[in-house]
């Protein structure tokens, strides 16, 4: 069977003119820094000053340390937990906004979900001190029914609350948008053909919004994985995550090259997870 004729690729100065700014931007602000960071992981520190070198000592040092791997697996675990929690908590709200709310209500809801991003994440994190501390609002309310006080700050729970503060509004928005774009006639057809509500959810709504749901989960994981504020301030640095390890590494001895090793591994992990998830999201279902 002959191959279909493909349009001939030609160099278009006009198209390149429009593409060039984004390419230059990416080269200067993404590719350049990443290349420098990788190179820096081979540098040495002498008298608190980085010197150019090509030594593997930073890599061997960090890879051989138990605390690095403890931090690594802890960071993956807690970012995954945050992603699962955010996806589960966001789904009912996003479902209601996508299918039950009027267009006007949905617009207002999305606007309200964007508002938290107008304020500093650090300030929002500090506000949890008032709510979660042992003499805070939650424990005061629990005290009325004879419960508590419970320790919530400086725990994994505190870190999780911080992660959700950062990610939950974004996850709700992404889930809402992906479900609102589903062709409603397909859902009606499923119901008309006798599909029960739960089956409609599992067999029609979730598969059709799969890409958006996976993108929401990926964003949640990436933001949680790289967040420094929540584990430091609400988690009390108990079981340090990789961002905290980067800070510790630079604080003592100014070991920026070793911090670069941690950062490169973080980026490699995130790239792997993001590309796998995107491949999963856009994979065509095999024809039967």
């Amino acid at each position, binding site marked *: 069977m002959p191959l279909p004729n493909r349009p001939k690729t030609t160099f278009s100065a006009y198209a390149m003119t429009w593409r060039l700014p984004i390419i230059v931007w990416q080269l200067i602000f993404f590719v350049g820094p990443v290349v420098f960071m990788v190179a820096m992981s081979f540098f040495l520190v002498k008298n608190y000053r980085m010197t150019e070198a090509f030594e593997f000592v930073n890599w061997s040092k960090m890879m051989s*340390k*138990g*605390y690095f791997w403890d931090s690594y697996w802890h960071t993956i675990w807690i970012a995954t937990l945050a992603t699962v929690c955010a996806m589960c908590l966001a789904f009912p709200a996003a479902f209601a906004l996508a299918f039950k709310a009027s267009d006007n209500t949905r617009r207002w809801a999305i606007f309200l979900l964007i508002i938290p991003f107008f304020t500093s994440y650090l300030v929002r994190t500090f506000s949890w001190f008032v709510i979660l501390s042992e003499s805070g609002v939650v424990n005061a309310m629990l005290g009325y029914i004879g419960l508590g006080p419970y320790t919530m700050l400086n725990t994994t729970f505190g870190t999780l609350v911080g992660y959700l503060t950062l990610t939950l509004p974004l996850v709700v928005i992404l889930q809402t948008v992906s479900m609102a774009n589903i062709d409603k006639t397909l859902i009606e057809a499923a119901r008309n053909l006798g599909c029960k509500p739960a089956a409609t959810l599992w067999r029609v709504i979730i598969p059709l919004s799969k890409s958006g749901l996976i993108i929401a989960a990926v964003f949640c994981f990436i933001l949680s994985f790289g967040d420094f504020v929540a584990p430091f301030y609400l988690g*009390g*640095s*108990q*079981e340090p995550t990789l961002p905290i390890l980067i800070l510790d590494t630079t604080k003592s001895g100014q070991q920026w090259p070793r911090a670069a090793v941690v950062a490169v591994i973080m980026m490699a992990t995130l790239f792997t997870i993001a590309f796998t998830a995107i491949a999963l999201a856009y994979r065509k279902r095999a024809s039967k």
Partner: protein
Amino acid sequence: MTKPSTRNPILNPSRRALLRMGGGIALSAPFVSRAWAATTEINMLAWYGHGEPDMVADFEAANNVKFVPKYYAGGDNMLALIAQSPPGTYDIILSDAEFVQQLNLAGYIEELNPADYPFDDMLHADFQQFPGHWADGKLHSLILRGGHLGVSYNKNAISAEEAASYSCFWKPEVKGKVGHFDWHLPSLGMMSLYNGNGANLWDIDDAAWGDVQETTMGLRQQVGGFFDYGGTFNSLKNGEMLAMCGIGDWITGVLEKDGAPVGSVIPKEGGIQFTESYCIGKDSEKADIVKAFMQHMLSPAGQVKSAQMGAYPGFCVTKGGRAALIEQDPKEAARSHQMEGMSNDPIALINEGRIHYRDIPKQQSLEDWNDFWSEYKNA
């Protein structure tokens, strides 16, 4: 006959008047900028608080200078900032005493003339020949203030008797409520003191270092968090932490003045002194005015300011400074035990041998201590 104008030339100027005013402003601009330029800017590298108005405003007004502070957190951070800046960037450097030797060895600071400063007025002989400040008989740094690190605790949870030993950190009632200031040096130094290493707390062999690690690991189950300055402050204030390892009056003093039921004591095993000192940056073109500022801060008035510093208190190092503090602010002098005959008088504690100046490990590298600290945090 033309009608006389009733226009207010300031509030409602004519076009001509507006152009005239604009021209006047434009022509006078060089003189205004010259007047501003006459204010000398002094670049300061220091811990937070030392370049704030409560410390420098009087000197700025009296000498037509303006301090431009760059704040750091930790001696390593300070050394890195200097190493990455061209010579002459910083005119005055406030350093922890244990890092002065490294500043001097790297050639980052100028030699000082001892005759310029009131060494005869020092409260303690150690302050005249402070370790690391002198090299080959030459002075390189000037002691400004100090503070003691010991057991910091909530008085409602730990009694004064219990706080008299580091063992109070292991008290079952404070499980999960012991915090660490997130810097390995003071906390591990305290564990070394608890192990009985006394004056040799920084100079321990590998066996003793192993014991310090074991003791520290034994504390891990009691620990509720690792905090920076703000976190330490908050967690003690809101009662999340009931005891804190690695700090002293420099944090609890601020809270105490605010009415919080917290305090710091030097336990029987001994405490650690942090010492802050001024240096003149190498190749500074403003060495003369910086010298005048250092003389001002060592004067009784300057020492009182330092003792009352809003960010964190420190004790006076001159006799004149202490006398002025007792006279001008007896409440603060009493709170910080800076009165002769008081228990925990900082100078008496040094004389009794209960205070050890903060230093860096002698037989291990800082990296070894830091690596262990990361392991400890992950345990």
